[in-house]
């Protein structure tokens, strides 16, 4: 279908797909979030990282981490409960074994960083600063590791963001947790600390029990929920956050279709992430990119950027 916007005809091919996050231009607004796409090689039979707006790779820490004992994953109605526990080979192995390939194919790479302490984060980001990664994402919100996540405290979020901005020139994204009393307080704290962008939501803490064995379905007892089950929660939090801050937002949580992506952008997201959907349909990211083109063309939207924050609430 061809529609008209002003005098210009809009076709799926003519829809402006690029978006800008913290000075970095993404060729389209679809990102695969950390923890759902490894380091980009596992889905090569279906899509390649350079076809996406960006790939947020599996979290890296200074030293390798084993992660949690299995079972690490369970199903919930319309979603997944996981407790992987940030298993990763360490930042040095990521830089030597994964990053060169990602850059050689032209992918925009978001390095998701975790640490036990603020010093860990600073050291890891310092190591990444001299590499080809395009952006740093501070994962301060994983629900599957011991202790209270930094993202539960506005003060700690601001302090860590400020410190990290001091060790890297790369844009810093702060990934927020939904498991907080006020998402906007934490979002404002990250902005005050100098964050260049926010991404939300990380998984929602949950638990399931096998009633036959009376044991939790996950060895770690609790885990993080993702998938369509959390989508309305994510839309609400992105909307609230976009009204509270003036930095770009990567919105995600249960996005499965192009229509979901449109909705998330209308709520205030500048880009979207699509992760758990791949577990049902490995081609989901590409289908969302193509679906966005079609939706925009069908609805007289010349550029996906026009969608951001376009929800009408009055």
């Amino acid at each position, binding site marked *: 279908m061809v529609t008209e916007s002003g005098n210009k005809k809009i076709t799926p091919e003519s829809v402006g797909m690029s978006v800008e996050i913290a000075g970095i231009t993404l060729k389209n607004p679809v990102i695969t979030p950390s923890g759902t796409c490894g380091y980009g090689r596992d889905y090569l039979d279906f899509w390649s990282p350079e076809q996406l707006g960006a790939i947020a790779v599996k979290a890296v820490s200074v030293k390798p981490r084993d992660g949690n004992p*299995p079972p690490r994953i369970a199903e919930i109605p319309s979603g997944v409960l996981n407790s992987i526990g940030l298993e990763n080979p360490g930042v040095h192995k990521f830089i030597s074994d994964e990053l060169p390939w990602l850059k050689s194919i032209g992918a925009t790479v978001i390095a998701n960083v975790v640490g036990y302490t603020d010093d860990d984060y600073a050291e890891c980001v310092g190591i990444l600063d001299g590499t080809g990664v395009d952006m740093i994402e501070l994962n301060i919100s994983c629900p599957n590791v011991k202790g209270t996540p930094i993202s539960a405290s506005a003060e700690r979020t601001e302090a860590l963001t400020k410190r990290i901005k001091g060790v890297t020139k790369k844009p810093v994204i702060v990934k927020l947790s939904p498991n907080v009393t006020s998402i906007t307080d934490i979002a404002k704290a990250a902005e005050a600390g100098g964050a260049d962008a926010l991404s939300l939501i990380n998984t929602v803490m949950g638990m399931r029990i096998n009633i036959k064995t009376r044991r939790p379905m996950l060895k770690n007892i609790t885990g993080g929920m993702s998938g369509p089950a959390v989508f309305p929660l994510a839309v609400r939090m992105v909307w609230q956050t976009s009204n509270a801050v003036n930095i770009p937002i990567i919105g995600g949580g249960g996005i499965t279709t192009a229509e979901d992506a449109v909705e998330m952008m209308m709520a205030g997201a500048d880009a979207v992430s699509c992760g758990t959907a791949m*577990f049902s349909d490995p081609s989901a990211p590409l289908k969302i990119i193509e679906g966005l083109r079609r939706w925009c063309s069908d609805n007289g939207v010349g550029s996906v950027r026009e969608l951001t924050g376009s929800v009408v609430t009055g």
Partner: protein
Amino acid sequence: MRDCIAEIAENRLICREGGIYSLTLRAPSISDGAAPGRFYEIRVGGEGGRFTLRRPFSVAFYDMDSITIRYNVVGEGTKWLSGMKAWDRLDVLGPLGNGWPVDKTKKTLLAGGSTGIFSVLGAAMELGSPVKAVLGFKTASLINSLDDFGAFGADVSVITDDGSSGRGGLITELLAEELAKGIYDRVFICGSTMMMKKCAETAAGFGAEAFVSLEERMGCGVGACMGCVAKIKADNENGWEYKRVCREGPVFRASEVVW
């Protein structure tokens, strides 16, 4: 691996007591890359349904344009699957994983317990006659698929836990007697974790190289999510590392598994 829409040629109850079905799926090139011990992930519940995770099933046997899997109804997903009929369509991802190290120059013994027999059935097909399979079931009413082993030329011995059919006892007894003949280089073992552990110990006692097909709760099936890991021995501080059942497995050398 490919994601394809396959047509159901047959979805037939083959063992009422066990709720076991034989599902044959047809699609051009669906079996490209298929090998015994590899698996397919089937989407259940239809698009936009309540099931987010695909269900993994090892392939029992296959030909040019079809694959057959056998499964028992254990939960909501497999219950939905059992309601599908011939001509219905299913979204199938695969083949996935590594599969059995089939080598016709190595004399191989197959050991299957309960629904673990389906994974070794594919090995019987590829190894061809003559191949020996020892199969264990809880009770006579759960015995199934013996004809298929026979059709591939396998010589089958069956043991039941309660002695309700043939011999009574544990599969390790049959395995030990067979291995005592001293003619086997390898054993492929698939069944419950306890069955595999005990069979692997038995095989080790006879100096036979044992392989097991591990099962773990699985997410993506392609290696991306790190959901389905198992502890495998490694040359590091821990002495082990997690490996992905879906990618580095599901078949591992039994001697490398940390049980």
